[in-house]
């Protein structure tokens, strides 16, 4: 049997709505109690909880093996931090259980429990013991911590005088020198400058290479891909996928691009532009009748839009992006050959025809925008995604996305 170190089974967390909102006052509770006898109160309370309660996590199951670096991704509010809190014993699960083999160290925030009036030295001991280190252990690692944080000259100054960089380096230094078997890290890389982030990554890498198990939450997908072999994707409090990082991240990104309704982009909030026109739907299809988009497919991009009045001097652009690198594969601009009429009707469609984009197999995003009279009317980054399949007659050595983004037809021969 694989050496499992974290086993999460059926974990759920329900917040009673009252808890999450304003705290109660004693007065309110007493008045409520006085209004109803105790028994009825209990039944009533349970009924209200069932109605108003909100499940931050529901039926979460996964395992982490020894020595693994497991990523945890998901949108904001999906429940990642709640899960970490449960694993760190800060909050209790409502259902299910977690089994942990080994000491757990949590890094949920940099500089946990630092007291501003105390010196760096005192805070190392204070924060270290709060994170679970014994004094003897801190003594042993003291110099290493100070060296990592680069604060030797400022050891005895109160922490409130530290620059934000020093503060964070110290916070991370202390936590990084914990030696738990299991390390839980929550978006620590979100703060700090590049130098700091590099240091953190390097240290986590080192910790992982010593065989410790890490559960790493981050929005920084590049970091996740670089450090984690497997990843859990949490969406809306439930596990949307567990598996090799590459696949999971791909699925996660694809879902954020095209949420519940693939075609109706009307509701998308993350757009730029002055709003005088609005892209409502985008479709891409092969024009040779193939149901599937292939490397050798001629394609047609259809953009449906709506506007309050006709769009004068319109310009429409679109680009295909590679999902992993975010690089632009190819771009299309109506301005190049001035092909659109001087005025577009207020509501309608615009089509872009591509004879042979020759995209290598893989997932692509489409970003697009509409200009009106030189101003950006509407722009959407990664409006939808689509998959490109290999050509039916492709050889086994056909060009792959790993190497290049497009597969340009070419011919090799002996020189003349």
């Amino acid at each position, binding site marked *: 049997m694989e*050496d499992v170190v974290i*086993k999460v089974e059926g974990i759920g967390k329900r*917040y009673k709505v009252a*808890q*999450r909102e304003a*705290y*109660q*006052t*004693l*007065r309110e*509770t007493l008045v409520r109690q006085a209004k109803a006898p105790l028994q009825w109160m209990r039944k009533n309370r349970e009924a209200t909880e069932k109605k108003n309660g909100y499940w931050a996590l529901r039926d979460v199951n996964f395992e982490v093996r*020894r*020595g*693994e*670096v497991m990523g945890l991704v998901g949108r904001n509010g999906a429940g990642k931090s709640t899960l970490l*809190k449960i*694993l*760190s*014993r*800060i*909050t*209790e*699960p*409502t*259902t299910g*259980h*977690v*089994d*942990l*083999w*080994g000491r757990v160290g*949590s890094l*949920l*925030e940099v500089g*946990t*429990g630092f*007291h501003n*009036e*105390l010196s760096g030295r*005192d805070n190392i*001991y*204070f924060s270290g*013991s*709060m994170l*679970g280190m*014994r004094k003897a252990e801190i003594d042993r690692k003291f110099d290493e911590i100070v060296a990592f944080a680069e604060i030797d000259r400022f050891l005895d100054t109160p922490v409130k005088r530290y620059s934000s960089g020093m503060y964070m380096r110290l916070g991370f230094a202390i936590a990084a020198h914990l030696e738990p078997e299991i390390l839980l890290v929550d978006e620590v890389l979100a703060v700090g400058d590049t130098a700091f982030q590099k240091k953190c*990554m390097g240290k986590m*890498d080192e910790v*992982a*290479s*010593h*065989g*410790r198990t890490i559960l790493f939450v981050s929005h920084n997908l*590049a*970091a996740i891909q*670089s*450090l984690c*072999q497997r990843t859990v994707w949490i969406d809306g409090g439930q596990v949307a996928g567990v598996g090799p*990082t*590459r696949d999971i991240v791909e699925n996660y990104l694809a879902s954020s691009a095209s949420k519940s309704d693939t075609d109706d982009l009307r509701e998308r909030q993350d757009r730029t532009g002055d709003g005088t026109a609005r892209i409502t739907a985008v479709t891409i299809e092969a024009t040779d009748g193939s149901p599937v988009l292939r490397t050798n497919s001629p394609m047609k991009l259809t953009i449906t839009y709506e506007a309050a009045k006709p769009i004068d001097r319109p310009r429409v652009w679109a680009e295909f992006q590679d999902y992993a690198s975010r690089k632009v594969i190819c771009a299309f601009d109506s301005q190049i050959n001035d092909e659109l009429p001087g005025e577009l009707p207020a509501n309608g469609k615009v089509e872009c025809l591509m004879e042979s984009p020759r995209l290598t197999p893989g997932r692509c995003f489409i970003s697009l925008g509409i200009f009106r009279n030189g101003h950006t009317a509407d722009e959407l980054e990664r409006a939808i995604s689509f998959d490109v399949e290999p050509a039916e007659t492709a050889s086994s050595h056909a060009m792959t996305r790993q190497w290049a983004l497009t597969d340009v037809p070419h011919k090799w021969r002996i020189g003349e």
Partner: protein
Amino acid sequence: MSSGVTQTDHSVESLKLNSVIGPRKFGIAPRRIQARKGWVGIDFRELWEFRELLAFRAIRDLKVRYKQTVFGVAWAIIQPLLTMIVFTIFFGRLAGIDKQTTIAYPVIVFCALLPWQLFSYCLVQSSNSLVDNAHILTKVYFPRLVIPLSTMLCGLVDFCFSFVVLLLLMAYYGIYPGPTILLLPVFLVLAMIAALAVGLWLSALNVLYRDVRYVVPFLVQLWLVVTPVAYPINLVPEKWQWLYGLNPMVGVIGGFRWAMLGESPPGSSIIVSTLATVLLLIGGLFYFRRMERRFADVI
């Protein structure tokens, strides 16, 4: 963004490195995290594990308190002294209570003020301790009992300073403690238990119901009157002594006065009081432990 680690299979490497951590731990019982229902006992072993944290927090509070204040140590002495003077003038002389005491009134008052100050200080500090530490309660795990417990040291240190002043005061009035002084540690512990007990109740309640914070000063005021600081215990008629004794501080102060001044040995009120204190503590501990699981969610 590569730090030299490739995406390829790590499992071989980690198998090799298992020897760094140690042999595979077959048969080691895992720690299980799951919902707890109902009343939970105190995990003494865990508290012991975190004893260093308790010490650090207590010492830190002490350092911070004495670092920043202008008065610092002096405040621990000035406060009871001034109170004693004011009480002597108004309650002692003008209200005539000093006629009811056999020993010098100022000494009686000051003797009671020591445990009272310990109690009221610890009470106020611990009742706000959880809410004030909201930011770490949501970020780190450690036994939550550590927080109100760590507020007690400061009160104790203050007590020590004012104790010295008490001895000086007693010498001035020519009162010397008898063999009963050996019982002083008992009542000191009782005072701390009373403070902790009330502190636990209030700190837990404060997390769940934030208006408790505003009730506390009022509570302390009333409690002072109900406690025999400005007057001797026998001010209360005999038949009501048992009810009066429900106040934990009655037992503490009665005992203090007995230990230090050799005053009347404890009557029924003190026995009731001690019992009440212990029950309050046990109740407080259980309530705290039961509510503990909701702290991070509610705070």
